[in-house]
């Protein structure tokens, strides 16, 4: 099948839906494609927490204060132009969402803003109780209804971006329901596929967040930036099995109610690490990165909880207070057999967000003309560590910006795609072969284990060398021809295509992490435990005929002034 549009948007989470709305508002015809259902997959719908924007409803604020906090969190590596766009546009998007009746929590007649860690004042809006992401998704899905210039297509997995003379001109996809290849001629393409949390066994994202967009952009010839910076969330839910809630939900409760971390011997341990490091933000005993470190060290020393993490206990909090803080969530917990008055739960660091991604200019265009990125797929705005609350904000802000830019690029472009641009991906799909020799779903499990153990929150040269070797082994194991079971909704082919993307992205992370011989923000090297000012620059990843090529880019102007990039 052959489709045509002005703007193709890959991924229908928060960033993709916003991009579609803005591109259509700019007069473009849009195809909004998602491998799952529209507005159901990705990270936005999973997000239960807060959204940062200097709307000044709770107390006076200015986007420049938000920017200062964002840059401070980023450890000197933020692309300040992108960070500024994020913070300056945030109030517009938040108020637009409010006008669209998303239902931001209110207090005394104004939108309520919470004071999240890392912010200098209350700045984060949310929807009660833990409904932020679902409410955002639902609101955007509603806005998409009846927009005649936007065609929404689910179950459509993009295999590769089509390139003609170095310019993006559409994409080749596979329709999961029928297995039919679909070519989409587009004057501009927006990658809005979110992050890469699925690369890790323990993660807080959706199944479809395997870094598809990074792989698509890489193979299209675009540059990726900051790929070594994967954000881990220290106290992700581990056990008992929790159903129906975001695994990162414990943080605000720990913060509000003073939840206590205990090791497998039911002993408090935070203080020990706080004393050792002397770092303390005055609210938590430990900052997020130190909490991650402390939990992993306790597990390593044989003092982990039974499932390999730490206990988080609220037993000291009176039941009425728990009920007040958790609201209806306490009933959802009860359905999972969790009674906080009697038993601690187990928590562990989990992959949560990716700071790295597609390198873009101020128009959100990648280094490949007419190929744009938005949301978490964009790298650079958050530097080496993301400020809490900035993820949904960037989905909305970058989505809107990329949608508008893509529409403008489409207006300035004559359709130039020829059959040749789609040929490589069509040829790949034609080569699919029925085979039971390899189980790609099992290999995905192996990849997740490798990344968790060797390219996780704490890395060393030894673990990274081993990870790169094992990823090379997986590359060889999947081969060059797709595996298939020949049936509709071909799970073998889907897993193979996912693995093809995941291996490429995992290697980008591992190789960039291997090169960066320092610890900064979310990238922690046990063999180089300190921040090194000489490393204040960003690393760029490119794809060269199947090989990952790493180079250095000067960081922001300001960073260069502070410390020149070493040769």
């Amino acid at each position, binding site marked *: *099948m052959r489709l045509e549009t002005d703007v193709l948007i890959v991924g229908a989470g928060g960033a993709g839906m916003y991009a579609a709305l803005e591109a259509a508002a700019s007069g473009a015809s849009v195809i909004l494609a998602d491998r*799952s*259902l*529209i507005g*159901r*997959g990705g990270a936005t*719908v*999973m997000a239960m927490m807060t959204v940062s924007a200097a709307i000044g409803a709770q107390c006076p604020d200015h986007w420049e204060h938000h920017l200062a906090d964002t840059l401070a969190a980023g450890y000197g590596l933020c692309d300040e132009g992108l960070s500024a766009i994020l913070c300056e546009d945030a109030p517009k998007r938040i108020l637009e969402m409010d006008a669209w009746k998303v239902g931001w929590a209110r207090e005394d007649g104004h939108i309520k803003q919470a004071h999240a860690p890392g912010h200098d004042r209350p700045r984060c809006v949310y929807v009660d109780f833990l409904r932020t*992401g*679902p409410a955002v998704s639902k609101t955007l899905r509603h806005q998409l209804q009846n927009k005649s210039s936007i065609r*929404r*297509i*689910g*179950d*459509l997995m993009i295999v590769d971006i089509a390139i003609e003379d170095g310019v993006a001109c559409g994409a080749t996809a596979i*329709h999961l*329901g*029928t297995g039919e290849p*679909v070519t989409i001629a587009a004057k501009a393409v927006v990658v809005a596929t979110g992050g890469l949390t699925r690369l890790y066994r323990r993660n807080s994202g*959706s*199944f*479809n967040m395997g870094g598809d967009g990074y792989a698509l952009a890489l193979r299209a010839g675009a540059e990726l930036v900051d790929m070594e910076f994967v954000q881990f969330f220290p106290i992700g839910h581990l*056990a*008992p*099995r*929790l*159903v*129906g*809630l*975001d*695994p990162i939900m414990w943080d605000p409760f720990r913060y509000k109610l003073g939840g206590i971390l205990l090791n497998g011997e039911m002993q408090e341990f935070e203080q020990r690490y706080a004393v050792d490091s002397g770092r303390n933000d005055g609210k938590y005993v430990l900052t997020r990165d130190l909490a991650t470190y402390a939990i992993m060290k306790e597990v390593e020393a044989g003092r982990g909880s039974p499932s390999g993490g730490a206990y988080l206990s609220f037993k000291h909090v009176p039941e009425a207070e728990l009920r007040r803080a958790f609201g209806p969530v306490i009933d959802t917990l009860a359905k*999972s*057999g969790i009674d906080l008055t009697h038993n601690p739960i187990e928590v562990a660091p989990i992959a949560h967000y990716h700071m790295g991604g597609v390198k873009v200019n101020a128009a959100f265009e990648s280094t490949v003309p007419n190929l744009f990125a938005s949301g978490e797929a964009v790298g650079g705005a958050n530097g080496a560590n993301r400020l809490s609350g900035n993820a949904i904000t960037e989905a909305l802000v970058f989505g809107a910006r990329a949608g508008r830019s893509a529409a403008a690029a489409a207006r300035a472009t004559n359709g130039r795609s020829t059959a040749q641009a789609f040929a490589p991906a069509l040829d790949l799909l034609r080569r699919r072969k029925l085979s*039971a020799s390899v*189980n*790609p*779903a*099992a290999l*995905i*499990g192996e990849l997740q284990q490798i990344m968790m153990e060797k390219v996780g929150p704490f890395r060393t040269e030894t673990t990274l060398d081993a990870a790169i070797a094992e990823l090379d082994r997986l590359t060889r194991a999947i081969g060059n021809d797709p595996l298939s*079971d020949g*049936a*509709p*909704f*071909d*799970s*073998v082919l889907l*897993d193979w295509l996912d693995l093809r993307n995941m291996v490429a992205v995992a290697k980008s992370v591992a190789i960039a992490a291997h090169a960066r011989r320092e610890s900064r923000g979310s990238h922690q090297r046990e063999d180089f435990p300190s921040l090194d000012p000489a490393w204040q620059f960003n690393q760029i990843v490119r794809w060269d005929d199947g090989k990952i090529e790493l180079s250095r880019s000067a960081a922001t102007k300001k960073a260069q002034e502070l410390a020149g990039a070493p040769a």
Partner: protein
Amino acid sequence: MTATLIIQRGSPKAQRHIERFDVPFVPGQTVLDGLRFIRSQIDPTLAFRFSCINANACKECMMLIDDTIAYACTTRLRDGEMKLAPLPKKALVNDLVTEIAPPDERLNPSTKR
């Protein structure tokens, strides 16, 4: 503990049939966990939809579990037999996958139901 998942398989073009899979589990694990175990450890061709993994956010894993419509991600595995089948009133795609997208969000909007 072991759950025996009795799964209705097949597509409109292929013969429908029943297959049984024994799935080891610890209490608290869900039917979706069991299906993912089968896919990665026993039979990579088993088709089912899921996205958010046990957060009950995406609503994709709806199916017939012991003759009742339920989400695989919120239904717990239990010792003994459990019957899984695709949604009865939606067009079958393959195995446990049915056409659940709204008609205007499909590649071929004319597909029935």
